[in-house]
């Protein structure tokens, strides 16, 4: 049983990071119909910004997290003006947006490689500090990650439910034309959506970097498909769904290795478990567990 508790705790760590990355992808898809293939690389950008602050300048990890949030939000917003808005002006279709996103992912990832090279990097944190909570052992990094991620999840949830911006985002995602007619400032909401998605990507990137312990610019792509899986699981375009989808997917992939489950899946197949969840959900319930059927 203690194995299950430990796996669940690990799943909560993985899942909460997936959740805050997925909510950004889901908001952007819901509002702009962009499958943002570059989102994983936004995470990497945030992780490396934090690395510069934390390691090169010796700043505290909290300061690094703030820098990651702010600068990744700036990056995402700048790209809205430089890339996505011009593409929308030219009435680019789903294919064009998808392919532009792939191009952007290639540019961002390899620009980071160029700036930071391929050496594995790590933050200045105490990797040997381990906390025991009953049967569960969590490293300091994991504990920090889960605390920050859960706080971010609650904040995003409140923002979506209570603030005017959150309501505007949900309205746009639900029915763009109707929302515009109802007087919602579409351009402003779109920009703020990128700010939120980018900021969350920045913090998710930092946390993933912490949890991975050492990382290279490739981690963004590795994490991207599980993030998509979380988005799909929760119902594409549903922000609450993405939060739940991320947590559930994190738990499912970790618990799939539990030895009581017919010996458990080999840990190397954890990504495959995530992809299989993705494929199964799309086949059996493409609107997602929480999604609405009419969105299809």
């Amino acid at each position, binding site marked *: 049983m203690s194995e299950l508790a430990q796996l669940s705790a690990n799943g909560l760590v993985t899942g909460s990071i997936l959740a805050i990355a997925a909510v950004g992808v889901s908001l952007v898809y819901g509002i702009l119909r962009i499958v943002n293939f570059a989102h994983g690389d936004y995470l990497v950008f945030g992780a490396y910004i934090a690395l510069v602050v934390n390691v090169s300048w010796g700043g505290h990890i909290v300061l690094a997290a703030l820098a990651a949030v702010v600068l990744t939000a700036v990056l995402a917003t700048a790209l809205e003006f430089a890339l996505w808005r011009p593409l929308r002006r*030219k009435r680019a279709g789903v294919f064009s947006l998808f392919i532009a996103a792939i191009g952007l992912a*290639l*540019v961002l990832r390899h620009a980071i*490689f160029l700036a930071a090279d391929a050496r594995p990097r790590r933050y200045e944190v105490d990797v040997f500090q381990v906390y025991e909570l009953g049967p569960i052992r969590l490293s300091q990094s994991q504990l920090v990650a889960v605390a920050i991620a859960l706080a971010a999840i609650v904040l995003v949830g409140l923002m979506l439910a209570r603030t005017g911006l959150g309501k505007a985002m949900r309205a746009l995602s639900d029915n763009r034309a109707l929302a515009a007619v109802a007087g919602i400032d579409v351009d402003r909401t779109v920009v703020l959506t990128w700010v939120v998605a980018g900021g969350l990507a920045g913090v998710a990137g930092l946390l993933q970097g912490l949890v991975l312990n050492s990382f290279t610019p490739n981690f963004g792509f590795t994490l991207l498909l599980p993030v998509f899986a979380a988005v*799909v699981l929760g119902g594409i375009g549903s922000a609450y769904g993405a939060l739940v989808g991320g947590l559930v997917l994190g738990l499912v992939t970790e618990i799939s290795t539990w030895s009581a489950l017919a010996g458990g899946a080999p840990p190397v197949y954890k990504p495959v478990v995530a*992809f299989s969840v993705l494929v199964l959900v799309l*086949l059996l319930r*493409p609107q997602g567990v929480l999604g609405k059927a009419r969105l299809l």
Partner: protein
Amino acid sequence: MTALSLEFWAFVGVIAGIYTILALGLQVQFGFTGLLNFGHAAFMAVGAYTMAILVVKASFPLWAASLAAIAAAIAFGLLLGLPTLRLRADYLAITTIAFAEIVRYVAINEQTLTGGPVGTIALAGPGRAASYNAEWLDVQRTVQDWLEAVIGDHATRDVTMLVIVWAVALVLLVVVDAALRSPWGRVLRSIREDEDAASALGKNVFAYKLQALALGAALAAVAGLFFAFQFSFFSPGDFDPLVTFFAYTIVILGGTARNWALPVGAVLFGLIFAGTRFFDFTPFTLFDSADRAYLRLIVIGLILIGLMLFRPQGLFGKREEMVLE
């Protein structure tokens, strides 16, 4: 090797030829039918691995193993298509890339079947270097002898390969182009433009999509076979999702649904990808070779973005055929 050696440019040409065949498969699926298949590299992997495994582990003759490889890729295409082709375009894209990653993870981790991360050299088990290439080298030597009679000493291994790959690529181009001009090809285009209209005219849209996916998979398997023959051994890393993105770059660069633009796109891609390795003068000497590899990928990314912004139809395409909702 220097920048001007025939050998080097023959190598660039072989890569361009293999990518022409790979991109032709994507042209059928994406360019004509509108299927966003992002798992194309997996079909290439299935083809290459099936051939290598059958030759090394089951002692198949090469021709039989190659036919089985193409059949396996078609079977994988059908297996993938049956449940997923009813999905919307963007969902299909995500599902196919997940499928391709599953194939790659299996190739990395099922060492007894595939040789694992080091590749096919470990197919025969530890301590013995496996090779599937002996029969191919015989074929290649025969062709090389014929060529020597015509062009003398220029007929090296890579030049021979260049001739074989491009001969196959051109034959496939002619055949596939004819198929796509036939009534069958017109139905595929109509599905891309308006699925509901095609369906209302009594066409079985699902069956046509499945055929397009299977034909594309078979072409990817042929590309996989030539890739395997060219490099004597390969590993799961050779079928990275980047390979699929490269194939898209070629299709889009030439122009969606323009078959004769594919070789042009592939040669341009070959020049960007392999040709720039020999830019050994300033300002390129400011970067070391790893940095130049990153720069190449940045350039390819910028080309994709630039095309989508300024010329979504590619160099030779029609704008109406790319700007789809």
